[in-house]
């Protein structure tokens, strides 16, 4: 009797859980089903399941609607930026966490203050500066801007982790005759893998989804990244809901795939900056 009452008391909670789960996950399932249906089918009934799976829509989007180009652009920009960020950020974080030197507090303050700069404060003059340097409307320009904007958070997370590594380890390495760069390469980096993984996931997701810098700094269709490509396609084909849905799935597929494999790492990565 008591157990039953307990169950009854929990019914609203369970109901809420089910409703919120549908609300959070439902839209993606809906877009996934639309990505395999043609637009006339969708306008017939937007919320029906696919009758026949139109896989050819993906091939169509990839070649005819230029999503292939957008995808590769995104991949090139994000992978290069994340690789550079990881290396540059780890070097700076290692240096700040490991060595005592004059001006270290100033350097730390200057780099970390980058975390609170609103993009609006940078974007207008970055537009001018990239024009001056001849980097406007180029993937290289976007990459370097991405590195600059994500550097503060990367250094913040890595330095916090590196600073906790026991000093004995480095004393011992020094005694065994390791040079400063060997210490970085053979001790800090391998031991820092968990933190490095965190920053890689965080930067990958943020940059893969980035829109504002890309929309200001790129103009050619051949250079558009995925978020820009989708908006561009949307602008020209407002009513082709089926094709837009296919594009959305192409854009989120890598993220969903990684999430399915490493959900814990990704959750940890995305929330890393906020926990400490």
């Amino acid at each position, binding site marked *: 009797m008591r157990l039953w009452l307990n169950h009854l008391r929990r019914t609203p909670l369970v109901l809420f859980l089910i409703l919120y789960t549908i609300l959070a996950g439902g839209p993606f399932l809906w877009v996934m089903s639309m990505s395999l249906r043609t637009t006339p089918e969708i306008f017939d009934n937007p919320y029906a399941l696919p009758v026949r799976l139109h896989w050819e829509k993906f091939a169509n989007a990839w070649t005819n609607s230029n999503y292939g180009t957008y995808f590769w652009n995104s991949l090139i920009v994000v992978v290069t930026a994340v690789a550079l960020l990881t290396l540059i950020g780890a070097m700076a974080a290692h240096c700040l966490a490991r060595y005592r030197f004059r001006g270290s507090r100033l350097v730390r303050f200057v780099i970390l203050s980058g975390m609170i700069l*609103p993009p609006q404060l940078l974007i207008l003059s970055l537009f001018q500066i990239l024009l001056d340097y001849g980097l406007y409307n180029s993937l290289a320009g976007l990459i370097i801007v991405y590195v600059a904007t994500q550097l503060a958070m990367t250094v913040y997370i890595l330095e916090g982790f590196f600073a906790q590594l026991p000093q004995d380890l480095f004393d011992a390495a020094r005694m065994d005759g390791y040079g400063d760069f060997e210490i970085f390469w053979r001790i800090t980096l391998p031991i820092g893998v968990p933190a490095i993984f965190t920053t890689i996931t965080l930067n990958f997701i943020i940059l893969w989804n980035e829109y504002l810098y890309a929309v200001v700094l790129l103009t050619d269709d051949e250079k558009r990244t995925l978020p820009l490509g989708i908006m561009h396609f949307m602008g020209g084909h407002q009513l082709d809901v089926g094709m837009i849905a296919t594009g959305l799935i192409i854009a989120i597929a890598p993220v969903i795939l990684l999430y399915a494999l490493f959900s814990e790492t990704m959750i940890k990565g995305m929330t890393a900056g906020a926990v400490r």
Partner: protein
Amino acid sequence: MAESAAPPRARRVAWLAGDSIADSRQAPMRTILLFLAPALLVYAAFTIYPVLRTFYNSVHTIGPRNVQTFVGLDNFAALLTQDRVFWKAVVNTALFTVVGTIGDVLGGLLLALCLFAKVPLARTLRVVWFTPVLMSYVVVGIIWVWLYDYDWGLVNLLLGWLGLESWQQSWLGDPATALWALVVTHLWKWLGFNMIIFLAALHALPEEVLGAAELDNCGWFAKLVYIIIPMLRPTLVNLLVLSFIGKMMMFDLVWIMTGGGPLWSTETVSTYVYKRAFNWNTFDLGYPSAIAVLWFIMILLFVMLITRLLRSRDRLEF
């Protein structure tokens, strides 16, 4: 491996004698500069310099072919006294920020408490609830534009099924509802983030305290208000500040879903900066820079105010 010429034993002795080379906290300035150089160079050229240049631009008018005229504080004066769209944008951003931040933090806490109550499948639910956080604003924005669609959007369809036809409307097309429709979408995207942070903080709470409360026959609401929330205070403050900053800079979602319309009802400060710089064909980067500078100072002041207020109350308690 140049220094490995000396036998290890000799080096160890040198270290025991306090030789500076062996202190692993010390390194020659050259090495330190090499480690920091790439970061500092990128940072100086693509963060510090642009920020300074924006401040410089904000007191200039920048005409065609980059002709710059010094105008002092004219941009700021015009902004504060004459620009009605700017003030509309400030009001919108403020509404969005206050309602959105409170919703984010309370909603996140509610979701975290649900999962904390030892429900079945909590781990799976956590993963599903977090999914929107990983999606870009472009994806989220487009999905919600469809959901809000007047003719075939799910929101109006559901209202129809529930017999509330009179409530159906063009959610993003009506100036009265557009901003709130955006707030709902923004909440939907970020609730999972706040939930995860709260959940981690809840799991870190000392069990004894929660157990003691149960022994004292403390009701769940009293337990929440008098024990859990005070103990979560640092997390709460952190999330408030994070959420606040994010919403004060809100651009993508608004730009994608409404473009600031209809009738400036969803114009935020950020979308207005963008429009003045790139869409109005005035080609003047000075005026939008002034908006950006002013807004940055506002954000800084508010963040300092929030942390000061909430931290000083902390101090009183002890």
